[in-house]
């Protein structure tokens, strides 16, 4: 198609002279073209630098400093502590390190369950709604609503439902189904993990649903028709056509869900404020507390850097491994 020609021409324009340069005005146009993409990128680049990259570097620098409340006004004067903050953060025998490790474990378990369930529900709904039926549009709109709702309103409504005395959940579980002897607490204690997981899955599964719905539309219908004529049942079609075709979509989707869930701050913060119960102490809120409640920003930054390193490591392992798996099956 025509798609390759322009790019080839431009690639040539940078190094060797283009095959057929337009006469006279050619030179001027080429120079403009050479800087033009950078001009287009400049705003995005400047903003990314200002809001993401420079602060990140500052954050990394801060993690090597003893930045306590005494230095918050002029943080340049805070003493260098080398790896001191990191040592505190990973020393699992001391309270700070032990708490961080516990929070990390909780976050891992939470993320695995939340991503797994969100993906499962999203895939199930998308596959079951692949064929048109009456009311599909309405159902799709309903299913996408949790994704469209602002995080804080969703969490607030769930908090109301999880209330001890006047909540819907206890009304159903205790008053109507008599599953528990007393009214359980959901927002404090061990049950808070379940509450957090419920809200997270409720919020995230529609995103999986949306992405997989979009992915399913790229699978040619005649694949199904051909396989049906060859005698393949629904289950076999799912395993032989649908899931393999979705693999590239799933590769990105699962990674994005993982990163969002692992980094999630909004849900636990709105739900528990500054003090999450130990079982629901997700790492982002934990670091926030470690920084802002104790006013020790050096240690907080070191924890954030460790978190970033962990996420980079997971991504660096995940992408080649999944790509290889895809390559082998293809």
């Amino acid at each position, binding site marked *: 198609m025509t798609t390759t020609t*322009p790019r080839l021409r*431009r690639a040539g324009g*940078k190094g060797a002279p283009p095959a057929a340069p337009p006469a006279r005005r050619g030179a001027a146009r080429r120079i403009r073209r050479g800087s*033009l*993409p950078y001009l*287009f*990128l400049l705003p*995005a*680049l400047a*903003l990314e630098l*200002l*809001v*993401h*990259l420079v*602060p*990140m570097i*500052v*954050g990394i620098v*801060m993690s090597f400093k003893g930045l306590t409340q005494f230095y918050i006004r002029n943080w340049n004067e805070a003493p260098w502590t080398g790896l001191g903050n990191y040592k505190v953060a990973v020393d699992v025998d001391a309270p700070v390190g032990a708490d961080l490790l516990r929070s990390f474990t909780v976050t891992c378990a939470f993320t695995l369950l939340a991503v797994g369930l969100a993906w499962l529900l999203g895939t*199930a*709904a998308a596959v079951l*709604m692949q064929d048109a039926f009456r009311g599909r549009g309405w*159902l799709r*709109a309903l*299913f996408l*609503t*949790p994704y*469209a709702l*602002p*995080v804080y309103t*969703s969490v*607030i*409504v769930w*908090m*109301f439902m999880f209330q001890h005395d*006047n909540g*819907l959940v206890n009304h159903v579980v205790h008053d109507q189904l008599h599953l528990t002897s007393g009214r359980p607490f959901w927002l404090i204690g061990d049950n808070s993990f379940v509450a957090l997981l419920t809200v997270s899955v409720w919020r995230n599964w529609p995103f999986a649903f949306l992405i997989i*719905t*979009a*992915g399913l539309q*790229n699978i040619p219908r005649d694949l199904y028709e051909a396989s049906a004529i060859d*005698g393949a*049942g*629904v*289950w076999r079609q799912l395993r032989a056509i649908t899931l393999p075709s979705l693999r590239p*979509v799933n590769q990105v989707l699962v990674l994005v869900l993982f*990163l969002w869930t692992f*980094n999630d701050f*909004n849900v636990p*913060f*709105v739900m528990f404020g500054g003090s999450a119960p130990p079982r629901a102490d997700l790492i*982002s809120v934990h*670091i*926030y507390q470690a920084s802002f409640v104790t006013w020790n920003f050096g240690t*907080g*930054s070191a924890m*954030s*850097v460790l978190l*970033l390193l962990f996420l*980079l490591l997971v991504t660096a392992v995940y992408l080649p491994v999944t790509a290889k798996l895809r390559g082998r099956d293809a």
Partner: protein
Amino acid sequence: MPETAPAGTAPRRTSGYRSPTAPPRSMIVTRWIVLGLLTAFTGLPIYVMATGSLKPLRDVSGEFRWIPSGLTLRPYADIWHTIPLGRYFLNSLIIAGGATVCSVVVAVFAAYAVSRYSFRGRRVFTVTVLSTQMFPGILFLLPLFLIYVNVGNYTGLQLYGSRGGLILTYLTFSLPFSIWMLVGYFDSIPKGLDEAAQVDGCGPVGALLRVVLPAAVPGIVAVAIYAFMTAWGEVLFASVMTDDRTRTLAVGLQGYATQNDVYWNQVMAASLVVSVPVVAGFLLLQRYLVTGLTAGAVK
């Protein structure tokens, strides 16, 4: 389950009124059970929000009732006085609107460059921008706060505590996804189209504005929805970077719902009022999001 369906079922149906891909009965039963459960799970909080906002106070402070004992619109009137909801609303509207417009403009140009030009650093740019998505917000919250304060001290440009500062912050939150999605979308528009426009005398910007943009409307709408929703729902930076004047709905409503004595009917009413603009916009435009994703990102 559906595995046991006789292999001949589907083809036999073709002779009737259905396509060969028509599902067998067991599949239809499974479908209605699963979709029914999902409907209940998804719809329950929405039901609680809607009915809760219409209940008198005694209904929401006592034991939960499925059916309200009476209906009242009082909560909808009271929310504007109990907290300065109007001001929060205006702040959120300005901040989310501003962030959306800026984000879309910036993303369109960046995505066009990545999609249409081959230049040194193209891959580095793409990877860097996408990888900012994985940064924990908490890592750059405090540094960004310090940078904004210092920019204010040196240049007099008030970023901390101002709406402008939050617009700047939020627009970069949606930028990586927006660029990524628009690159995919622009890639799906034949390059011959803007080549032809340039031959006809449009400059590169003219080709982008007059030819590529009109063809990319679904992608742009999708990106705009995403940017608006991101800014409308953000909590962490809003709670640190705003003061009394510029407080957004995210912070205001959270405070409302975590007081000692919560008027749950009012909180539900406020939640509903706050959600309606985004949810309505999203549902009206969601088909663009699906087409945008299908053509662009999910390929």
